[in-house]
């Protein structure tokens, strides 16, 4: 699916292409459904970034996640002023990097705010510099970050399950199993067709869904404490 235009889609969305290049790319998009689909996926990620609520973290999971994905800068993470974080960030999404970006986005939205796109910035929010989360040239890192985040949240659920009604715990676990089953099926599908844009984004979306449910469970435990 990768062609000469794939890595320029983010620049296109950012409005950073010269008019002539932009026109050429738009012409290409009319003929290349793969690029068109990838562009739609990137737009969806951006849209999601803009609509993510700044939920308070149940616990400070970021240090563990950052360490797992190698995103911890020397001296640890620190908040920076919005102004300094608003410099345009050049994307370099391609598949399967898109999947990693999508997962990284949800990893970062729990307690840390990620400015994936300048347009996603919201007033009054101090982002944490965590560029590695979306530096998706390192998908294995993002995968480790995902695994670490899931492990953290599963530990919260295990340790805090006594604070929830047993019916609620059963419902959450049943739905987690449903999602896990979907993830396994999607992973097998990706193995059979690794260049399939849909399968990669579907896998990422399903993994994201698991994180969201675990986070929701952790929030319930926190509220019940």
């Amino acid at each position: 699916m990768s062609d000469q235009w794939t890595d320029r889609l983010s620049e296109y969305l950012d409005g950073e292409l010269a008019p002539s290049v932009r026109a050429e790319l738009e012409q290409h998009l009319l003929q290349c459904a793969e690029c068109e689909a990838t562009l739609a996926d990137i737009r969806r990620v951006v849209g999601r970034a803009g609509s993510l609520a700044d939920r308070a973290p149940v616990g400070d999971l970021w240090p563990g996640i950052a360490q797992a994905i190698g995103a911890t800068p020397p001296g640890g993470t620190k908040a920076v002023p919005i102004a300094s974080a608003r410099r345009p960030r050049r994307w370099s999404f391609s598949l399967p990097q898109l999947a990693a970006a999508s997962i990284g986005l949800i990893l970062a939205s729990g307690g840390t705010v990620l400015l994936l796109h300048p347009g996603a910035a919201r007033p009054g929010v101090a982002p944490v510099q965590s560029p590695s989360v979306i530096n998706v040239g390192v998908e294995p890192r993002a995968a480790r970050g995902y695994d670490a985040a899931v492990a953290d949240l599963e530990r919260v659920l295990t340790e805090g399950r006594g604070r929830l009604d047993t019916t609620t715990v059963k419902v959450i676990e049943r739905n987690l199993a449903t999602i896990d089953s979907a993830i396994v099926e999607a992973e097998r599908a990706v193995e059979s067709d690794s260049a399939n844009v849909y399968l990669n984004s579907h896998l990422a979306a399903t993994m994201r869904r698991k994180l969201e449910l675990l986070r929701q469970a952790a929030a319930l435990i926190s509220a019940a404490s």
Partner: protein
Amino acid sequence: MLLTLTSAALAALALGQDIDTTVQAARGDRLDISSYGGDVSIQTWSRNAVRVVASTSSRGRVEVSNVGAVVTVRTEGRRGPPPHIDLEITAPAWMRLDLSGVYTDVKVAGLQSPISIETVQGDVDVSGGQGNVSLQSVEGSVTLRNAKGRIEAHSVNQDVSVSDASGEINVETVNGEISLKHVDATSLEASSVNGDVRYDGPIHDGGRYSLTTHNGDIGLAVPAGTNASVSVSTFNGEFKSDFEVSVTQTHKGRRLSFTLGSGSAQVTLESFQGTIHLARPGKLEEGEDER
């Protein structure tokens, strides 16, 4: 000063008895309800006041207050968690509502204001709402009618149904169906893991519509004259359309795309292993029933 504040804060504090109390509300005040368990029913009237009717046992109490532009209704237990207490509340239609519950079924009718409801074990049924309307239940179903604005309706373990509503719409569930009927969405994101997703409503030029599921069917009603670029993706599923479409692109892995009219709107339909079905308005459920 302290005495005045205390008087204002405790407009009503009922312990182990029936209560029927009314507190005044000024335009712009917010209604904040916290109910541990029981049915909460909210309806509207023309008065700028909030009426709370409840029956409590000796183990529970209901606190009603109006402080700092917030009318608060809270159920509490004398020792430990509050018992189930049913609340019947009447409020002005303009009043913004924030409600959180645990074992709480919620029914709201007539509010024309922003609404936020979260419950764990209970159904949410709302008619009305304007602006930001956010409804969430973990174990219960979520039903919304006659709302307008930025709508979020989320469940985990049950169905989500939105009808006769308009605006930017985001609906999701894990283990349930999503039904959007007579909905005028300017943008739509509807997603389930283990359930069908159906949308019957206009597709606006420039809008973005995404219907996705893993283990369910997708149904989209497409009005005549729709301008949309449609992307269809599945892995083990099928695609069928009740009307002719000219597929412009097919891709490996059961993916195809086509354009309707000018192609202005972006429509994404994805089912990992279900049927993706295009129908004309009003025919979607007939088509689903035929299967």
